[in-house]
């Protein structure tokens, strides 16, 4: 992009005010279709097989551990009577939180007209679905007797008793299942026009039939687009409060209890901010390597996108940091002995009294300190720095949930009931296994579905603007660049 190409000539003196195009190098519409579809159409690369060779066994071993836990009972885990929730719920909240970034990108950024979302929304929504799949495993199996899991459903159970609709655990069932279903619907609605593109490009019979079936016979007619755009707007509109509600409901699991460290009114906004924070880190963790592996996406996933995501990580990370400090303040201000003990002794570890203070400090460093580097522009534009910070955030957000759950439980009201907790190998491998499931699903997604929403990216190109009525402009204007 040279200065001469910039549309706002009068502002060239202030380069930061010139709008950087979202699709770089003035790529044409067919370039977008060709390059995004080529990921799916080209021969399966070697790295993909190698990656699958690692992730699939990990996923399968995770499933084996789940089977072991189901057949032998929750005794296979490290929980005890005092610490009844530990890695299971930590992992549940960790994964469900990651999902939030996808919905935020697809819905909230759509409503706020953030056009840069178009390059990343498809992959982020897919990430949401796969993260929610991983999240759903844990509440399912932590009930111990999984064949009784249907007791969670809103139907009368064996004794004709209905579930308690006033319990946040039941709200959770509704919130998470609604979230997953709506995310699938939203994702699929967005996919239909792109599946039609793949159908029309398909070279062999099988893929033409398969993409054809799932494209539902989409013709891209304006009479269809009219309803489609309305449907997309509505789905974005209803997903926005939904994404805010899901993690709020998850936080109610804790906030409505009377345990110090859980019983906090700040939990819903704090959890939502944390979820977006952790989710964006996971989006970048996945997209940065994907961009490296598919250099043709460079013009679509630009520095601008990474920069903006880094800014969101900085913002939400700071909100989370504020929440951590506010929790400490409220604990002190409440003058409640048990609250103060949980925060100042069990977590901060005054007089070396906190068993899990190391986890608290790990959380603080990863979540509050590490993203502060994003105040610097060079850090946001250096992919290695961004990737490292994202790894810190992923770790930190897992520790956040661990700190909330385990420190509050392990050292509770009565010192005589205090118990240490350490995970068993089954528990550890179940968690590692969910990473295998997540990555396997994502690799399959990359291989068979368009990773970037082509029809949406096309809207943000200058060619798509119907008011740019210069004859001869448009298709093929990238000739002088390539």
């Amino acid at each position, binding site marked *: 992009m040279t200065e001469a190409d910039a549309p706002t000539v009068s502002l060239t003196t202030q380069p930061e005010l010139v709008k950087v195009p979202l699709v770089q190098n003035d790529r044409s*519409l*067919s370039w977008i*279709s060709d390059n995004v579809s080529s990921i799916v159409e080209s021969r399966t690369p070697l790295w993909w097989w190698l990656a699958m060779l690692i992730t699939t066994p990990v996923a399968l071993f995770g499933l084996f551990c789940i089977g072991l836990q189901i057949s032998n009972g929750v005794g296979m885990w490290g929980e005890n009577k005092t610490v009844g929730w530990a890695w299971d719920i930590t992992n549940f909240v960790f994964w469900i939180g990651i999902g939030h970034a996808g919905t935020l990108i697809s819905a909230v950024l759509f409503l706020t007209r953030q056009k840069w979302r178009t390059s990343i929304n498809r992959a982020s929504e897919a990430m949401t679905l796969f993260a929610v799949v991983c999240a759903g495993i844990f509440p399912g199996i932590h009930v111990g007797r999984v064949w009784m899991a249907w007791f969670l459903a*809103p139907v*009368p159970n064996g004794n004709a*008793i*209905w579930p*308690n*609709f*006033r*319990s946040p655990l039941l*709200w959770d069932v*509704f*919130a998470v299942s*609604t979230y997953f*279903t*709506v995310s699938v*619907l939203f994702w*699929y609605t967005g996919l239909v*026009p792109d599946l*039609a*593109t793949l*159908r*029309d490009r398909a070279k062999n019979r099988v893929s033409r039939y398969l993409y*054809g*079936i799932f494209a*539902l*016979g*989409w*013709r*891209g007619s*304006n*009479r*269809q*687009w*009219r*309803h*489609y*755009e309305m*449907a997309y707007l*509505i*789905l974005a509109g*209803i997903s926005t*409060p*939904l994404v805010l*509600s899901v993690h709020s*409901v998850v936080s109610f699991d804790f906030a409505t209890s009377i345990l110090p460290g859980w019983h906090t009114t700040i939990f819903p906004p704090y959890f939502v901010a944390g979820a977006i924070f952790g989710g964006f880190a996971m989006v970048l963790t996945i997209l940065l390597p994907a961009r490296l592996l598919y250099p043709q996406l460079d013009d679509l996933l630009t520095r601008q996108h990474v920069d903006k995501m880094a800014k969101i990580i900085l913002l939400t990370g700071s909100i989370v940091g504020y929440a951590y400090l506010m929790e400490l303040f409220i604990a002190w201000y409440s003058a409640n002995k048990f609250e103060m003990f949980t925060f100042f002794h069990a977590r901060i570890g005054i007089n070396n009294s906190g068993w899990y203070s190391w986890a608290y400090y790990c959380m603080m460093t990863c979540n509050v300190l590490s993203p502060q580097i994003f105040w610097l522009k060079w850090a946001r534009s250096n992919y290695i720095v961004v990737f490292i910070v994202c790894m810190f955030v992923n770790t930190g957000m897992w520790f956040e949930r661990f700190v909330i759950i385990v420190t509050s439980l392990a050292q509770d009201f009565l010192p005589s009931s205090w118990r240490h907790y350490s995970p068993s190998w089954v528990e550890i491998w179940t968690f590692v296994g969910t990473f295998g499931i997540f990555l396997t699903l994502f690799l399959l997604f990359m291989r068979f579905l368009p990773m970037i929403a082509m*029809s949406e990216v096309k*809207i943000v190109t200058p*060619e*798509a*603007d*119907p*008011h*740019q*009525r*210069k004859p001869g*402009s*448009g*298709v093929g204007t990238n000739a002088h660049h390539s």
Partner: protein
Amino acid sequence: MAEYRKVYGLGAEFDTAADLMIAAEKVRDAGFKRWDVHSPFPVHGMDSAMGLGKSWLSAAVLCGGITGLLTAVCLTFIPSWGIYPLIVHGKPFDWRTVPAFFPIFFELTILCSAFATVFALLIMNQLPKWYHPVFNWERFKRATDDGFFVVIEARDPKFSESKTRELLEGIGGKHVTLIHD
């Protein structure tokens, strides 16, 4: 091909979204009713260029949302007030317990609205419809890539093979083709 095939309509291709928009305005002004434009992405302002109003898909969503809310109200109230009142922690189980049901009201409203949106979208767009005459046109494959098309159906009362062809060529349409069913 020797066999007789019914004519579906006439199609024309345009280079850019802007050209397509001008063409759509002209076809609209010529008084056609059964016609459509095809583009790889929604072109903003095309609805008015085609003389189409607002999409009323939102009405179906409202119905879905209300259904969801009423379902949730029945689902929470009937068991905990009528069939099997559960008294947990001595908390009230009558109307005073309503705030505890809000999350369920909310989630089911959203769930049913989302289903209503998607099903209304499929019904209003008549999808899935795996066969359509426009797919018989070889160039039409580009409608999902970078092609912009206007298709006027033969069912339109104003349709005439020669005059409509003239109109489409006159407004700058390229590769004007007769599409068979």
